[in-house]
């Protein structure tokens, strides 16, 4: 039954038995075996047979069980040559060494994850690595997390029940000078939870291991972290990520790698006896980024070479290409928006400038119109002035009479006042027309009123030219929003044009008809119809072009200005010939709502 002892010179079978004391579910065990298997496979040039015995010796370790296990293993591995046995943990090593003489007497053994103090006496072909947890590491880590650290709360099973931490009781004494320890070891869960929730500010929690709940120390970490009011320091990497802030922790991977290295050296022919067992420091400072954020610990305060896990990458780390692309797009857009705004501003300035110029030209055009009307206006103005003078002189005559004719004097004074008012009205109308303006004086007014005003100015001229002027206003008010002076100018220009067109018609046929209406599109429509010869059909559009004129002294600006004004207020203007002969100019303006007075 005993396997053949291979000759020293013979190469060892390329097979490894992993003799693991841990439970198949412990995080540590899983990580250790995964790292071990992958290191073995990676390091072996030829294929390797790997057997695993995961024994859960922490929970199942009676002498009777050990006997059964021995029988079981003997049966199981009969005819299965083993090159190297890897023992994981001190208990596994101890049992293995007990079984070895019978089962695998000459098979070299490599052990790992054994506390140096628990190391039994070793035969020469047994080698491996040991390590030792130390409280010093926990204190160092706690200081990094809590700068004003004075106290450390110790949480876990009593140290004598923790295989890897039995020696902590001695270490406590040497550290007591530096830090005060709050002993929460072995407390019932409920009490423990209360205590860790009410720790002083200058303290940290050092969680070692609690096996009593599930058998797996890590399972207690979230339960503590949930209520703890201080950061939790650990010495085992598997606690990190479950609520522990971190610490200088022992890692399974480097132990597994070192163990695999030794096993491979032996498989490759190196005598196990020549590879000395050695202690190793398999720790590394590892911290949970999320917990560091929670406890507001700066990464600079951590021990040098610390590994930060679970870093939640910022937007930049996670999506920096997307961010760069988005920023670029935004920048380009911003630049374009800026450029468009700039262009818009330039355009607005140009529009304002051109509008100002149009107003200047419009003003000149009004001045010209007023000049053309000056004879009529002078005539109109001299009527009341003449009346005033005559009345005044009559009054002088009457004052010399005796008795005074007071009645007539009163009449005279009333007439003077009336005539004076009339003269003032004429001047007001004229001034309105000539007023120079840089900005539109937008008002809401009735088109019918504006036409009545324009007619007031036009009537004397029409009389002079023997033109019959007629107005047919819509029965309802036609409110529009515009500058009334501009609208008057439009009417004046169109009316003067009409009268000019009739200069060669017989006086009896000279008729100028103004009409206002609300058209079917609910726009205000004004038409000015003359009885002249009309417009040539092909010039109906051209008449509105700048510098189009048929008159000797015309500037060709009148109708162009008229169109500009109408379009400024959102209206349209067009020319046509009336069925009865003569030209009709029509324009529309949007209807405004006249505010109730």
């Amino acid at each position, binding site marked *: 039954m005993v396997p053949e002892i291979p000759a020293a010179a013979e190469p060892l079978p390329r097979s490894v038995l992993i003799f693991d004391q841990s439970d198949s579910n412990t995080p540590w065990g899983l990580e250790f075996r995964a790292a071990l298997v992958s290191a073995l496979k990676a390091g072996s040039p030829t294929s390797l047979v790997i057997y695993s015995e995961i024994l859960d010796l922490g929970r199942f370790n009676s002498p009777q069980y050990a006997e059964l296990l021995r029988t079981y293993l003997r049966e199981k591995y009969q005819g299965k040559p083993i090159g190297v046995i890897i023992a994981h943990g001190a208990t596994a090593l101890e049992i293995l060494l007990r079984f070895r003489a019978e089962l695998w007497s000459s098979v070299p053994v490599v052990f790992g994850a054994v506390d140096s103090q628990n190391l039994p006496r070793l035969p020469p072909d047994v080698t491996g690595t040991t390590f030792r947890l130390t409280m010093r590491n926990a204190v160092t880590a706690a200081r990094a997390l809590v700068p004003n650290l004075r106290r450390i709360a110790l949480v876990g099973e009593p140290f004598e029940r923790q295989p890897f931490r039995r020696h902590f009781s001695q270490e406590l004494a040497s550290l007591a000078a530096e830090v005060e320890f709050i002993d929460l070891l072995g407390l019932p869960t409920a009490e423990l939870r209360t205590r860790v929730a009410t720790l002083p500010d200058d303290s940290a929690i050092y969680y070692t291991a609690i096996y009593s709940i599930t058998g797996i120390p890590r399972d207690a970490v979230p339960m503590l972290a949930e209520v703890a009011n201080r950061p939790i320091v650990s010495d085992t990497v598997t606690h990190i990520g479950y609520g522990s802030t971190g610490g200088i922790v022992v890692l399974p991977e480097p132990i597994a790698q070192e163990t695999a290295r030794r096993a491979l050296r032996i498989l490759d022919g190196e005598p196990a006896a020549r590879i000395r067992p050695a202690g190793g420091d398999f720790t590394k400072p590892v911290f949970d980024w999320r917990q560091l954020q929670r406890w507001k610990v700066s990464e600079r305060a951590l021990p040098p070479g610390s590994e930060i896990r679970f870093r939640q990458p910022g937007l930049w780390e996670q999506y920096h290409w997307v961010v760069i692309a988005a920023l670029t797009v935004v920048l380009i857009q911003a630049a374009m928006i800026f450029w468009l705004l700039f262009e818009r501003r330039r355009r607005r300035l140009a529009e304002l400038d051109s509008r100002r110029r149009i107003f200047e030209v419009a003003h000149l055009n009004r001045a010209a119109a007023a000049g053309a009307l000056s*004879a*009529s206006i*002078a*005539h*109109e*103005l*001299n*009527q*009341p*002035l*003449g*009346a*005033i*003078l*005559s*009345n005044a*002189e*009559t009054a*002088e*005559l*009457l004052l010399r009479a005796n008795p005074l004719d007071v009645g*007539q004097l009163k009449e*005279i004074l009333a*007439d003077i006042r*009336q*005539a004076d008012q*009339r003269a003032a009205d004429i001047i007001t109308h004229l001034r309105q027309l000539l007023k120079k303006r840089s900005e539109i004086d937008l008002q809401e007014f009735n088109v019918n009123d504006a036409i009545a005003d324009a007619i007031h100015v036009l009537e*004397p001229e029409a*009389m*002079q030219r023997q033109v019959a002027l007629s107005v047919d206003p819509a029965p309802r008010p036609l409110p529009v929003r515009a500058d009334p002076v501009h609208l008057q100018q439009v009417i004046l220009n169109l009316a003067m044009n009409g009268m000019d067109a009739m200069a060669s018609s017989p006086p009896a046929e000279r008729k100028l008809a103004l009409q206002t209406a609300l058209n079917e599109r609910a726009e205000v429509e004004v038409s000015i119809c003359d009885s002249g010869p009309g417009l040539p059909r092909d010039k109906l559009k051209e008449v509105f072009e700048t510098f189009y004129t048929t008159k000797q002294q015309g500037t060709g600006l009148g109708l162009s200005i008229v169109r500009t004004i109408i379009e400024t207020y959102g209206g349209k203007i067009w020319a046509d010939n009336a069925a009865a002969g003569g030209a009709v100019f029509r324009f529309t303006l949007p209807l405004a709502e006249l505010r109730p007075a």
Partner: protein
Amino acid sequence: MTPGTPVIHVVDDDASFRAAVARLLRASGYQVALYESAARLLETPPGNEAGCILLDVRMPGLSGPELQARLAETGNPLPIVFLTGHGDVPTGVRAIKAGAEDFLLKPVSKNVLIEAIQRALARDERMREQARRLDSMRALIATFTPREREVFALVVRGKLNKQIAYELGTSERTVKAHRQAVMQKLKVQSLAEAVAIAERLGMLAATDRSKNG
């Protein structure tokens, strides 16, 4: 207003001015007749009384100068003073050439207006005087016998008695007697005076035309 006071016919479309000027003229001692348009004046033409027309130039319908022309056609002798709100030189010149007494601009001061009206009235008076004299001369001539008329026509043309007798186929003595009767009826002493009357009445030209025609 006593009858015989001159009547100023004011034609102006502007009611307030019409009223004002009427008031002034009445206060200055004239009778005033008001017309709101030229047509209205033509409808009710002024009577034979002394006066003048104060006429606006620019009015709806018939204008001032047009009225002036119509009145001239109908032989209305009333002098015209134009009064306008805005007078340009061509209009003024045409009006004066057509016989207007004056061409005034509104506003017009009382003195200028009254002076112009007085001149117009004086002219009216002169024209009336002249017309009266011509009428009396025509009345004298109306008393001539046909033969006396023939003799008178030839005498004022400077024909000798012998020539007249030959032209009329009568004797020189008969002509001489007719000539004496004519001079007596005309109450003139010399041939020159008789010629002047004939000239005034436009008889010389008429005779000429009849001869040539």
